[in-house]
């Protein structure tokens, strides 16, 4: 009896202690996660909602903003050909994503052969991704130079009459795509290398026993095996490509004749050169909706080709 009471008291104090401890842990928990939530509320959600309102006005910092309803959106969709042109340019530039992924997978397959010196090559491929976009843009502008550029000299040596690249309306975007692949494959290679290492070797051994050749193994084992990473790279690179712009500003200034002005570059011009903040806000929301739509479509479509085990 006494022992029972004693035990009861013990558990009760233990409980009380535990709940005090729990409450303290809870308080600290909320306190610890507060800063990022404050940051997101102040620096993301508030400006985002504020700009949704701004997109319905003709705000330009100068005079008080007048409410103009959906006029900015109407202008973007119906009256401003540059919106569609720059959107087209953006998708054109995004061709670099699948092209770059193919190159990256090829390089990763070579590096996966555990050759001597593979770390050196891996480092070399990775190097541009950590370098300043300003410095890289400067050297590529020099390489693409129509008259004295290194590229056209070597193309001339092998008998190719090369275009004027950055100052040629037709060739400026292909040049930007080449530069983009060069500058961006490093990350994809590293991810592909990790993914290739995770494909179970037992699958390859079984296929060898069944008499599969290298190509069959690649198509039926490697490609499905790395499909989650392919999907991840596709999504992240696409999101990046749709927002790409600093290197365009530095290499071509968006020209010639808007042929390399991406939608974000256009947005930037509208906001900071024409100071039309209301219209720029509308364009930003328009772009946001497009990016979200593409992400959602990709996720929906991914069930058909991405295999999670």
């Amino acid at each position, binding site marked *: 009896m006494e022992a029972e009471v004693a035990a009861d008291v013990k558990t009760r104090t233990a409980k009380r202690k535990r709940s005090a401890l729990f409450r303290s842990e809870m308080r600290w928990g909320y306190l610890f996660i507060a800063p990022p939530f404050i940051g997101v509320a102040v620096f993301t959600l508030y400006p985002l909602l504020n700009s949704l309102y701004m997109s319905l006005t003709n705000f330009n910092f100068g005079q008080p903003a007048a409410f103009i309803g959906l006029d900015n959106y109407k202008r973007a969709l119906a009256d401003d050909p540059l919106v569609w042109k720059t959107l087209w340019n953006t998708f054109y530039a995004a061709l670099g994503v699948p092209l770059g992924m193919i190159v990256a997978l090829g390089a990763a397959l070579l590096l996966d052969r555990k050759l001597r010196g593979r770390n050196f090559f891996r480092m070399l491929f990775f190097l541009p991704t950590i370098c*300043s*976009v300003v410095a890289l843009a400067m*050297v590529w502008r020099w390489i693409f130079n129509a008259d004295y550029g290194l590229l056209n000299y070597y193309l001339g040596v092998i008998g190719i009459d090369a275009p004027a690249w950055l100052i040629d309306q037709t060739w400026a975007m292909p040049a930007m795509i080449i530069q983009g692949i060069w500058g961006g494959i490093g990350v994809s290679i590293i991810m592909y290398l990790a993914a290739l290492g995770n494909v179970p070797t037992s699958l390859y051994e079984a296929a060898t026993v069944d008499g599969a050749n290298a190509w069959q193994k690649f198509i039926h084992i490697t490609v499905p095996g790395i499909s989650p990473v392919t999907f991840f790279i596709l999504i992240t690179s696409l999101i990046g490509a749709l927002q790409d712009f600093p290197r365009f500003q530095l290499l071509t200034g968006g020209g010639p004749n808007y042929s390399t002005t991406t939608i974000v570059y256009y947005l930037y011009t509208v906001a900071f050169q024409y100071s039309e903040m209301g219209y720029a806000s509308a364009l930003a929301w328009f772009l946001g909706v497009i990016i979200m739509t593409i992400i959602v479509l990709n996720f929906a479509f991914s069930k058909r080709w991405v295999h999670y085990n």
Partner: protein
Amino acid sequence: MSTIAAGLGKRKAAQRLVDLAAYVLLGIGGIIMAVPFLWMLATSLKPDGELYSYPPEWIGSRLAWENYRIIFEEAHLIRGFFNTMIVVVPTLVIGLFVCAMAAYAFAKLRFPGRDKLFLVLIGTMVVPGAVMMIPAFIMFKTFGWTDSWKPLMIPGMFGAPIVIFFLRQFIKTLPDELEDAAKIDGMSPPGIFLRIVIPLTKPALITQGILSFNAGYNDYLGPLIYLNSPERYTLQLELASFSSYYVTEWTLVMAGAVVALIPTLVLFAFAQRFFIEGIALTGIKA
């Protein structure tokens, strides 16, 4: 017996041939990757007047080191470098600490709604950065923060969801026993965080610190949007404005590019592992 040996030999020979082909392809790829960097360096060391030699010369009649002296005189690279450090380092240190705190809470502390709140925080990452450019600018301008470093510094001090995500993954793998022992000794969450979690999380903190430092050092868009006064320019902005002014003076522009890359290359030389680990982990686990 001999046929088996011959078969093996044949396979080995074939294997060697494939390896050779792989080397050739990697070599071509490697040259394509390296040439822009080498050409940058080569151009930066060319004497004035030999720039437009055609066919292009990799090495001029002499190494024109004076190009480097000239750009340090013409462009405020040192001022730009220190401005960058002022912008990047405090933001990085405070931001990383805040992220680690939140990551610890999400990984180990128990409180109602924890996992849902984490998902909400991660969910905010879907807002594309380019979409935020204008709204954020409008807000900072109404704050009176334009042409100051504040818009480049203050938001980062509240932490970044992606970093919290990465650190949480890491802290989750730490054994609970150490923490439980500390709890029995009466240590409170801040004590556990400072004395146990932070020291054990060092590798992940270093990885994230290096990645954030490099991203901050290379940032061009932020300074471009917010800074107007040349004396506040960061290194990248200084370099860009210098090169748009001296457009055709390629020797000087390339010397500037080399100087701007040196800190990154030094960091990469010493911390290659962290760069690659950081990329591979955030990639695979996301």
